[in-house]
C-alpha cells in the first residue's frame, strides 16, 4: 500500500469547511422532489440546510418516508426515531412502512440520493465506511451496503484526511469495501470532487485553497473540472 500521509502545505492560506459548512454545501445540490437517505453522522446535518419550502423527502431505513427535523424535547414521540435512534418528527405527507418495504425502496433504486460518511473513497468509486480491518472485532455494517449499492446516486460526505493527515481520497481503498464503484461525488472539508470514468475531478475547493495544496493533501490524482 502506498504511503498516503501528506505533508501540510507551508503557506496555509485557507480555512477548511466546518461540518456545518460541509453539510450546507452538499444541501445546495439537492433539488426539490428528490427522495434522500442521509447516513448517520455528518450527512444527517444536511437536512438542516434544506429550506422547508424546497420539498426534499427524507427516508430513514427503519421505515420512515417524509421524515422531519429532530423532535423538540417537549414533544418527543417515543415510537418515532431515525436510523441513528434520535427522536425525530414526521412531515405532513410522511408515512411508515416495515423494514422489507423500506429496503425495497433502497434496493429497487427508488431513493434518488444517499449520502454516507466514509473512511476512504477511491478514484474508481469504491467506498469503505464500515470496517477498518479484515480482522475487525464484530464490525457493524447496518444498512450501509444496501444504501451504497441500491440508491440511484451515492454521495460521500467526510473529512478530506484523517486526524493525522492521511488522505481519505485514495487510489485504491485499503479498508474493507462497503460497495464497489458506487460513489458519484465526495464532499469534504477541502473540496467537492466528482468521480468520473478517469478518476477524481475537482468541482470546487475551500476558499483560498489552491489546486496544488489540495493535491498535496490527496493520495489520488486530481484534475480540475472543465
Amino acid at each position, binding site marked *: 500500500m502506498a504511503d498516503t500521509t501528506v505533508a501540510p502545505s507551508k503557506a496555509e492560506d485557507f480555512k477548511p469547511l466546518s461540518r456545518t459548512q460541509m453539510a450546507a454545501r452538499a444541501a445546495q445540490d439537492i433539488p426539490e*422532489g428528490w427522495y434522500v437517505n442521509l447516513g448517520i453522522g455528518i450527512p444527517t446535518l444536511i437536512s438542516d440546510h434544506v429550506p422547508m419550502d424546497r420539498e426534499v423527502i427524507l427516508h430513514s431505513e427503519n421505515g420512515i418516508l417524509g421524515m422531519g427535523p429532530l423532535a423538540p424535547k417537549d414533544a418527543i414521540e417515543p415510537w418515532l426515531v431515525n436510523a441513528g435512534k434520535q427522536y425525530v418528527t414526521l412531515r405532513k405527507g410522511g408515512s411508515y412502512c416495515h423494514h422489507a418495504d423500506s429496503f425495497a425502496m433502497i434496493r429497487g433504486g427508488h431513493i434518488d440520493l444517499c449520502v454516507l460518511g466514509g473512511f476512504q473513497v477511491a478514484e474508481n468509486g469504491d467506498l469503505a465506511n464500515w470496517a477498518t480491518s479484515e480482522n475487525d472485532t464484530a464490525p457493524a455494517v447496518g444498512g450501509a451496503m444496501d444504501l451504497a449499492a*441500491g440508491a440511484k446516486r451515492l454521495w460521500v460526505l467526510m473529512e478530506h484526511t484523517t486526524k493525522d493527515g492521511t488522505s481519505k481520497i485514495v487510489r485504491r481503498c485499503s479498508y474493507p469495501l462497503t460497495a464497489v464503484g458506487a460513489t458519484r461525488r465526495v464532499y469534504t472539508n477541502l473540496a467537492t470532487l466528482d468521480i468520473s470514468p478517469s478518476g477524481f475531478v475537482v468541482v470546487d475547493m475551500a476558499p483560498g485553497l489552491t489546486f496544488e495544496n489540495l493535491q498535496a493533501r490527496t493520495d489520488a490524482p486530481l484534475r480540475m473540472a472543465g
Partner: protein
Amino acid sequence: MINKIVQSIAEAMAGIQDGSTVLIAGFGAVGQPNALIEGLIEQGARDLVAVANNAGVGHEGLARLMELGRVRKIICSFPRSSDPVVFEGLYRAGKIELEIVPQGTLAERMHAAGAGIPAFFTATAVGTLLAQGKEAREFDGKQYVMEKAIHGDVALVEAWEADRWGNLTYKQSGRNFNPIMAMAGKLTIVQSQHIVELGDIEPENVHTPGIFVDRVLHVPYGDPSGF
C-alpha cells in the same frame, strides 16, 4: 412544492414510448385503471408488452388496445374471461405472443422488480409445463424454479385516495396488483377516485407511498361495474 397531480389525461399519458412494457393493474374490473387504459389507446404507443392478470374482456379497454394491433405480447395468468373474443382471435391467428405465468409468480416477479431483486426461487410450477426452460434447483431437499423480475416501463394504477406527493390508498379488494405494479413501474401513472390534502391519509395507513408514484389524475368514475 412537489405536485404529482396532473390536469388532463393527455398530460398523464405523455411520453409513453413504442415498445414499452406496460403493467396494467386490476383483478377483472376491480381496481382496473379504465380511464388510463383509454388514455393509452388515445396516446398511440405501439408494439407494447402488456402485463395484466387477465387478457381483456369484450371489445373495450385492454381488449380494444389489442384489437388495434398495439400489443405485441401479453404476460398474464388468466387469458380466459367471460368474453375473451379479441385475445383468442389474435392468439389463434398468431398475431400476439402469450406468456402464461402463475398468478402468485406474476405478482412476485413484479414485487421483486420493485424491490431490486433480479431473480428468486419458487416451488410454484415445479414439474409442470410452465417450468420448462427454467432453471431448477434444490434447497433443503425440495425442488424450486428460478423466476426473473418483470420491470415495467409504465405502470397504470387505480387508487381510492391520492395526495400531491402521490401517497395512495385502495378500497377493499381493489388493492390487488396496484401496489406492486406501482413499485415495478419506471413511470407510474395513477387514476384516483379522490384527491385529498397532504396529511389526510394517516401516516400508518398509506398503502402506496408516493416514492413509487409519478403522476396522479383525478378520475371520479363511480364504481367498477358501472364503467
